[in-house]
């Protein structure tokens, strides 16, 4: 390709071959555009209006510029660029784009095998596994906490009451993540209120190190994403026809069967979307593990954070970020498949 040859020859431009991959989205757009053109020509419809005809020239261009700026320059291209970066070696800025800047799997290999010593990289694999398992636990916990309230709000209370409950739910979420973690720390610290109460009542003699044994981490994550779980659940259950529950009750179903066989199957898309959001957010969270995790607990995002701010190894950090994203998406897809929910329903 003459274009890439031209890019490579200009070796003093530090980004050179990296930009070749970034042409991909433009090619995809062009393909879709050509397809649309062809289809419009084949199926000639006199009432159909072209894009610029419908929106006018000025607005039409404005819309396209805005959407292209967002979808391409803020979403697709940075993601692609990060992935490309993760396949490069870590080099000082002066050597970027030089002969040493080749494609490599080194960064991904370093996740599995330690670069120094060559043993299995137990620390980082362990951190990833722990983050994912803990996030699953937090998701399950939040579902258990939120389901009864969501059901109560959606099915058995008046509109006035629901609005007040909603307000009460939203107000704590205007306080930001850091301050909420701080508030929990004040409660759970060894000098905190809960330990004071426990010792005051004579239940324990010495303070319990809640933060050290990761209770703080779980509580913090659950607390941070309570609202993310409750709204999708509420929306899903709210549209369920009350008569269905009545009918089940009249036919003699006990309460747990009503939930198992009527409400939960109906609310499945909402449950899936709440769980997906909570899982992704806690797996990618940074504040709760940093401020509430125990000293020996290593959260995977903290590993990534350290590659950026302590080791200044952006390439390896990018590779780890991509590993995290891929692992989370794979798990969510697997779960959705297992519970037979389509992705389309979930993100609606």
């Amino acid at each position, binding site marked *: 390709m003459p274009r890439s040859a031209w890019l490579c020859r200009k070796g003093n431009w530090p980004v050179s071959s990296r930009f070749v991959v970034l042409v991909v989205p433009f090619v995809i757009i062009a393909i879709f555009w050509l397809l649309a053109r062809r289809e419009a020509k084949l199926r000639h419809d006199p009432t159909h209006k072209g894009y610029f005809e419908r929106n006018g020239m000025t607005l039409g261009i404005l819309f396209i510029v*805005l959407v292209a700026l967002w979808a391409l320059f803020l979403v697709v291209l940075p993601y692609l*660029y990060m992935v490309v970066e993760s396949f490069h070696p870590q080099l000082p800025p002066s050597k970027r784009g030089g002969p040493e800047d080749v494609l490599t799997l080194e960064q991904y290999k370093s996740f599995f095998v330690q670069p120094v010593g060559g043993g299995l990289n137990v620390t980082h694999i362990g951190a990833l596994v722990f983050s994912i398992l803990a996030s699953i636990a937090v998701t399950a916990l939040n579902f258990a906490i939120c389901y009864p309230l969501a059901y109560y709000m959606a099915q058995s209370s008046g509109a006035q009451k629901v609005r007040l409950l909603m307000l009460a739910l939203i107000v704590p979420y205007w306080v930001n993540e850091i301050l909420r973690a701080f508030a929990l720390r*004040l409660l759970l610290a060894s000098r905190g209120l809960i330990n004071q109460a426990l010792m005051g009542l004579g239940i324990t003699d010495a303070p319990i190190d809640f933060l050290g044994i990761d209770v703080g981490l779980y509580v913090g994550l659950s*607390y941070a994403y309570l609202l993310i779980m409750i709204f999708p659940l509420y929306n899903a259950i709210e549209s369920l026809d009350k008569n269905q529950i009545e009918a089940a009750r009249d036919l003699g179903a006990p309460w747990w069967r009503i939930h198992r066989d009527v409400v939960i199957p109906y609310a499945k898309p909402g449950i899936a979307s709440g769980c997906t959001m909570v899982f992704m957010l806690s797996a990618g969270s940074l*504040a709760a593990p940093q401020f509430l995790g125990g000293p020996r607990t290593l959260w995977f995002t903290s590993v990534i954070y350290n590659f950026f701010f302590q080791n200044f190894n952006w390439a390896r950090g990018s590779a780890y970020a991509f590993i995290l994203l891929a692992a989370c998406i794979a798990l969510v897809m697997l779960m959705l498949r297992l519970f037979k929910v389509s992705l389309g329903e979930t993100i609606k």
Partner: protein
Amino acid sequence: MKSAWVMKGMLGFYILLFFLYLFGPLIVMGITAFNTPSYPQAYPFEAFTLDWFVKLWNDRNMMQGLQNSFIIGLGVVALSVPAGLAASIIMSQIYHRARGLFYLVTISPLLTPGVIIGISTVIFWKDVLGVTEVTKAIFYKGVVLTILGQSSFISAYCLLIFMARLTRFDRAQEEAALDLGASYPQVFWHILLPYMKPAIVSAVVIAFLSSFENYNTTTFAILADKTLVTVLAGQVRQGTTPALSALAVIIIGISLFGAITYEILKRREKKRAEQAQKRALVAERGDGQGDALPAPSSA
């Protein structure tokens, strides 16, 4: 029905516990803001003080961060609300085979961990802006990168808000206007935009708030600058001071005020709607003599 009472009691107890979980930590933190010891403690309450608020006011870092947070919030609103609106309109017009992909691309930032958004923003824009020294000097700044990084997912929030409202839009209105000789841009400015106004207001509020309290993306994209949240994070990491509690009290105070105002406005609006409906009914019964009725009061 004894079991119904038991159920009701348990439900009440559960709701009580739920809200205790939600508000308990914040109340405890609130108490520590007014207590004298320099380690934030709620009990024993030694003496009432407002010193921590004064200390907060004098914290230069925090004030600098607050200022940056405001600038970033405004920047994000200016970028993501129009982008979300444009995307929602294009979504309704785009070539049908491309719609699924377009939706996936625009919604994906919501499912991507904020950390990754921050990293990719920095890596990408560092090289793009680094092409010339001038662009690097002007734009390669924490505030700019943070606006770009946050906008990538906040635009998606806006898109969802706009799409929800746009699906209820009655296309007949548009056609009526076109039949009466309006041009397409006129339809946009005089029909679609006024119709979208409530959604635009909520998009602005949500965009600003989510920008203001974002940590995960910001901590990477902010580079050497600071926002209120990154200053806070630094202070929480260093240790604990009741000044942080004081800040939380201020934020809770503002949000309570906002929530209550919102509730009052909503109720007033509902009342007004009911009155208007009543008047309309009366007018209809009066057989088209609505004009003869007393003019609607402004209340």
